[in-house]
C-alpha cells in the first residue's frame, strides 16, 4: 500500500459520499415532516390526542350555516339531532374514540388548541381560556346530509356534493354508517366505519367514458361506428347494456346513449398509453395528499392486450375510483377543466374571533377548457335525452353521466349504480357523485337520487 496520493483521493471521494448521504438525511427529514407531519399526527393511534382530550375542553364543530353539530359537555362529546342525524354525519365528523378518522381527528390540533403560539398561550392563561380548544366550522351542510341519508333508504353506497368553484364539500354521506356517540362501546362488526366517499374504491363503469371522451376530443378522434349490441376486440367480447344495438353513432350520441362497444373501439383507437396519460391528468394513480381529507388513490392501468385497453376505456378492467374523486372530476368538467382541491374546513374560531379562513386551492388541470366545454355539451345531452333523464332537476339544467359498473361477488355478476354530474348556476356551482353499491343500472337508482339531492341543494 504505497501510493499516498491515490489514497488521499479515495478518502476525499468517500468524504463526498458521506456529505451527500447526510445532506439526503437532512432534506428527507425536513421534507417528510413538513409535508406529511400533519397526516402522521392526526391519526387515532396518537396517544397525545387522547391525553389532550383529558385536559382540554375540545371545541365545537359547526356546519356551514352555523348549526352546531358536536360540542363538549361534562367531558364527553354531544351531538345534535337524533340517531339518524348522527349517522348521516358520522363519517364526516369521525368519532372521539379513535375508531374512525374524521374531522375530530383530522382537525384535532384546532379542536384541542394545539396550534396556539406562545403569545396566544400567555394571553389565554391570563383570561382563563387556556383549557379551551378552538371551534371549527366545516363546509358541510348538515341538513342536506340528513336529507341524503334519509333518501338513501339504508342502501349501501355514497353521495358526495361539492362546490366545484371553491372545492368546498357540502355533503359527504356514506352508508352503512355508525353512531359516533356509541361507537366507543360497541365497535361495529360490519363495514360501517369505512367512509365509502373517500375510501371506497369502485370500478367506475361508464362514468369513465368522460375521461375516454376527453382524450378523444383532445386528439381530434371522432369515429363513426355502428353498434350491434356486441363486439369482439382481440378475443374479448364487449357488450352493451342489455344487449341493445344502438345503431349508427358518433362520439356525442355514443356518449349520450353510453354505448360500450363504441367506446371500446374508441379506447383501442386512442391507444393504451395515451389513455394512461389522460387518466393521470384526471388524477388516477395519484397519491393524494390533501390537508382536509384522507382520499384513497384511484387506479387506472392498461396492458399490451387491446381487449384490456378496451375494457379499461369503459371503466372496467382494473379501473377503480372513489366517489369523492368522481365528484371532483365532474366538477372539473364544469369548471373549464380545473379540478379544485376538496375542502372540509371552512374556518377556525376562538372566542368569536375567526383565526383561520380556508382558501380554495387548485388540484390540477384535467383537460383544456375547450375540451371541457365539449364534454359538457355531451353531458347535457345525457340528461336531456340520454341515459340520465331521471336526473333532471326542475328549474335548472343538469349535466351528467350515468354508470353501470360490473363486478363479481360470490360468483355472481352485479352492478354498481353510478351517476356523476353538475349544474351551471353561479349561486350554486355544485357537482355531485352518487353510487349505490350493487344496486343495478345507473339510470335507475343513482340518477334519480342525484336529481333529488341536487334539487334539494339548490332550494
Amino acid at each position, binding site marked *: 500500500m*504505497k501510493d*499516498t496520493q491515490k489514497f488521499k483521493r479515495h478518502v476525499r471521494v468517500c468524504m463526498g459520499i458521506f456529505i451527500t448521504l447526510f445532506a439526503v438525511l437532512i432534506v428527507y427529514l425536513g421534507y417528510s415532516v413538513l409535508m406529511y407531519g400533519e397526516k402522521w399526527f392526526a391519526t387515532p393511534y396518537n396517544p397525545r390526542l387522547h391525553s389532550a382530550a383529558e385536559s382540554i375542553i375540545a371545541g365545537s364543530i359547526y356546519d356551514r350555516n352555523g348549526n352546531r353539530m358536536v360540542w363538549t359537555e361534562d367531558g364527553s362529546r354531544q351531538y345534535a339531532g337524533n340517531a339518524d342525524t348522527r349517522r348521516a354525519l358520522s363519517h364526516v365528523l369521525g368519532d372521539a374514540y379513535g375508531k374512525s378518522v374524521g374531522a375530530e381527528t383530522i382537525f384535532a390540533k384546532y379542536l384541542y388548541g394545539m396550534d396556539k403560539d*406562545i403569545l396566544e*398561550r*400567555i394571553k389565554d*392563561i391570563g383570561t382563563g381560556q*387556556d383549557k379551551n380548544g378552538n371551534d371549527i366550522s366545516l363546509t358541510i351542510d348538515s341538513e342536506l346530509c340528513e336529507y341524503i341519508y334519509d333518501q338513501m333508504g339504508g342502501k349501501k353506497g355514497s353521495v358526495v356534493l361539492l362546490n366545484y368553484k371553491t372545492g368546498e364539500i357540502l355533503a359527504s354521506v356514506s352508508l352503512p354508517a355508525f353512531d359516533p356517540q356509541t361507537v366507543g362501546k360497541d365497535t361495529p362488526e360490519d363495514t360501517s366505519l369505512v367512509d365509502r366517499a373517500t375510501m371506497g374504491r369502485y370500478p367506475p363503469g361508464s362514468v369513465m367514458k368522460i375521461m375516454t371522451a376527453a382524450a378523444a376530443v383532445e386528439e381530434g378522434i371522432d369515429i363513426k361506428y355502428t353498434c350491434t349490441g356486441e363486439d369482439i376486440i382481440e378475443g374479448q367480447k364487449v357488450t352493451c347494456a342489455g344487449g341493445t344495438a344502438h345503431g349508427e353513432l358518433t362520439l356525442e350520441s355514443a356518449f349520450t346513449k353510453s354505448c360500450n362497444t363504441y367506446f371500446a373501439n374508441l379506447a383501442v383507437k386512442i391507444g393504451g398509453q395515451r389513455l394512461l396519460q389522460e387518466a393521470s391528468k384526471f388524477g388516477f394513480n395519484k397519491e393524494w395528499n390533501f390537508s382536509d381529507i384522507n382520499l384513497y388513490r384511484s387506479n387506472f392501468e392498461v396492458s399490451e392486450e387491446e381487449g384490456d385497453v378496451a375494457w379499461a376505456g369503459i371503466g372496467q378492467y382494473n379501473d377503480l375510483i372513489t366517489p369523492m374523486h368522481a365528484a371532483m372530476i365532474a366538477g372539473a368538467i364544469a369548471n373549464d377543466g380545473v379540478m379544485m382541491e376538496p375542502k372540509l374546513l371552512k374556518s377556525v374560531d376562538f372566542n368569536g374571533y375567526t383565526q383561520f379562513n380556508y382558501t380554495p386551492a387548485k388540484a390540477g388541470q384535467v383537460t383544456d377548457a375547450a375540451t371541457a366545454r365539449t364534454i359538457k355539451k355531451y353531458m347535457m345531452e345525457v340528461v336531456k335525452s340520454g341515459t340520465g333523464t331521471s336526473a333532471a332537476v326542475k328549474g335548472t339544467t343538469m349535466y351528467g353521466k350515468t354508470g353501470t359498473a360490473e363486478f363479481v361477488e360470490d360468483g355472481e355478476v352485479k352492478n354498481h349504480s353510478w351517476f356523476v354530474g353538475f349544474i351551471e348556476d353561479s349561486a350554486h356551482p355544485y357537482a355531485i357523485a352518487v353510487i349505490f353499491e350493487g344496486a343495478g343500472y345507473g339510470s335507475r337508482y343513482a340518477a334519480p337520487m342525484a336529481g333529488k339531492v341536487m334539487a334539494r341543494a339548490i332550494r
Partner: protein
Amino acid sequence: MSSEIYQTVAFGMRYWFILIIGLMLLTLILVSRSEYRERKAVMGEVGQYIGYLEIIGGADDVLGERIGIMKENLVGNSRSADIVIADPSVHKNHAMINRKKGRVMLIPLNGSDTKINGRKATHPHEIFTGDTVSFGEIEASVYIKPQEEEEPHDDQA
C-alpha cells in the same frame, strides 16, 4: 398553577435552545474552517521548503533568523526576491539556489560577492548541510532536508 408556568416557560424556551445551538454550530464551523485554512496555508508553504539558511554572522538584527529554501530561489535584498536578505552588501539579484536532480546548486549572479565555506564562488557549485555561505557581509549556515520517506512498520525490520 405551577405546572402551567412550566408549560409556558418550556414552550417559550424552544426559541432559546434553537438560537444557542444554532450559534454553537455556526461558530464551530466558522472557527474550525478558518483555522484549517490558515494551517493549510502555512504548512503548505513549509512543506515546499527543501531546507533553510540560518544567519550566523554579518548583521546583528537578523542573527539567528531562518529562511526557507524552496526548489528555485532568487537570493537578493529586494522584496521581490525569494530569499530576502535585507542588507546593503547584498545585491538586488545576488545569487540563485536551485535544486536539480536532487543536487542543490548555488549560482552566483553578475559578479556578486558570494562565498562557500570562505572561498569565493564564481561558478555554480553544489552546497550541502553544514556548509557556510556568504552573500556580501552576511554569513549563513546551510541545512538541506533529507528526502522524505514513509515510516517503517513494526514488522518490517
